[in-house]
């Protein structure tokens, strides 16, 4: 056991300070997409919705409804329309009510 004791001392502390301090490694976590309303047209929205494997995206006539809860951050929407989609970088997504997780994104893109 002394072996482990010495190992531990030499290893030092690796524990994160989160939530007191921000955690550096969070930068690399996959995060849900963020959308550029100006780049979103109805057609784009439909393509995004079709590309989403988890049904997190759907278009209700003039808005894109984004259910963060169902999003798996797979990045397929970003691959589908890189100009309209980037990553939000938000990983603190816990919600105390389900409806909070459903976002509506306006479609501001110039159609046609």
């Amino acid at each position: 056991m002394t072996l482990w004791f010495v190992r531990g001392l030499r290893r030092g502390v690796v524990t994160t300070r989160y939530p007191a301090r921000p955690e550096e490694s969070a930068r690399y976590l996959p995060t849900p997409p963020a959308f550029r309303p100006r780049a979103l047209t109805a057609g784009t929205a439909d393509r995004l919705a079709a590309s989403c494997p988890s049904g997190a995206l759907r278009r209700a006539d003039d808005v894109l409804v984004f259910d963060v809860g169902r999003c798996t951050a797979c990045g397929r929407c970003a691959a589908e329309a890189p100009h309209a989609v980037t990553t939000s970088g938000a990983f603190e997504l816990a919600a105390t009510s389900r409806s909070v997780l459903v976002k509506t994104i306006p479609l501001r893109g110039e159609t046609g």
Partner: protein
Amino acid sequence: MTSELITAASRAVPGGVTTFQVASPDLEAVVRDLHGLRLADMFASDGDTPTLRLVWANDADGPQSGYVITETSIENGEYPALSDIAPAAFVEECEIYEQFGIRPASGKPLNRIMLPPHTGPHNTGTQNTGTQNTGLPTLGHRPPSEPEEVRAPHTVAGQAFEFPFGPVRQVGVESLYYGLVTSGEEVVDLYLFTWHKHRGLEWRLAGMTPRQALFLVERAEGLSAVAMGWAFAAAVEAATGTRPPAAAQRTRAVALELERLYNHAAAMAALCQSTGLSVGQSAAEIALERLLRLNARAFGHRYLFGVVDAGGAGRAPDADAIRADLPGAYGEFRRAADALLSTNSFVDRLEATGILTADQAGALGLVGPVARATGRLGDARLMPDGPYAGTGIAVPTATAGDVLARFTVMLAEAAESVRLIGDFIDAGTVTGTGPGTGELRPGGGTGLGWAESPRGEALAWVALDDEGRITRARLRPASARNWRGFDDACRSQNVFTDIPIIEASFWLTAAGMAR
């Protein structure tokens, strides 16, 4: 006929797969002759007459390695009892009966594998009634079964009693039911139910496009997402005749080896936990976390979801990140392993625990480190026509067949993985999008795909219709194979406290078994 099969089995084939039509009557003879090979999988697909497919693997380190598929169409709902010749077939016989209602000719009672006894408010992990009152869809015809025909795997008779364990077990592990049959002192028998986790994946995949399917296939067994996804993608590519670009293949390989690394680190942590060595667990978990962060940095996902894409690679590795972080992360792994191997109290618990013999492993068709620890050479990376072809990969094996042997095999594999990752990165990989990703060629067909997951060979078989939609997909993660060796390993000693250690050394998932 059969002699032809043997020659085919021992001949290098482009693509590594040879398929034969076998008439139902002489299936038994064929199975006898192919018994030298490993029965890798067995499944049925529905049609006007259901078709039974047996996948045989020729485990060899050389050009003659490959797979042989025999196709047999079942007319009268019965086929020769294969599990009497090849015991490895038993689980699949049961599964096929549940799903298609066709059964081996011998009236031997079959177990319940996938479908729960019955859904609804009174479902239990242990009681048993016929399949016909599970309100669940099946892949083929509902079996015409009376309740007593599909029976609970074990009923305890005589003076032993069953120690019920699960399905809700200790913290942070999957739901799984053990029936530990004991006489009070010795482990008479041990069996498990996984139907609490059956998500009907093969049923869901029917009608999907390969890309949609991949999303679920990766989640069949999340801890081997890359391997399962790659096997499935390879099957689709074989079905459509797509040749994925070599760079994409290397990307997959890098992800696969990273997956192997973090799984072996997790297995090491689990071994320490099961032996009560918290300090070792912490050391292993430090390595594990660093490997997962490496995954996130390199591929954008801690568990490498979405790396494999049908026809190519969905994500590209950040080669610089890997070059930067892999040595450090693997250093943690290596140091923890060395410290463990020099901790006698730990090694003693592993030695001569949960022994499996090579014969058992062969009879049960076990794969992966579990089989290699018994001295069997079986590794899907040795199969032809992969990115590993030129790498001169070394497959470590051991002979003891106990937990320690599995552990040492895992450590050796980890070292080999690091070397391979280096080679592949230097050879060059590709980004997820743009040229070189590879696109799926249109059209249909059937194909077999494989990849060596951390737990062992993962297999997938798909049949696509002309629009390229899936008509039948068969997923066989390594977990679906290796659980069947678990009770034999547990019965090899009669110490209850060894069972968690053995489970950790198998490092399987209930999700993969249940799908």
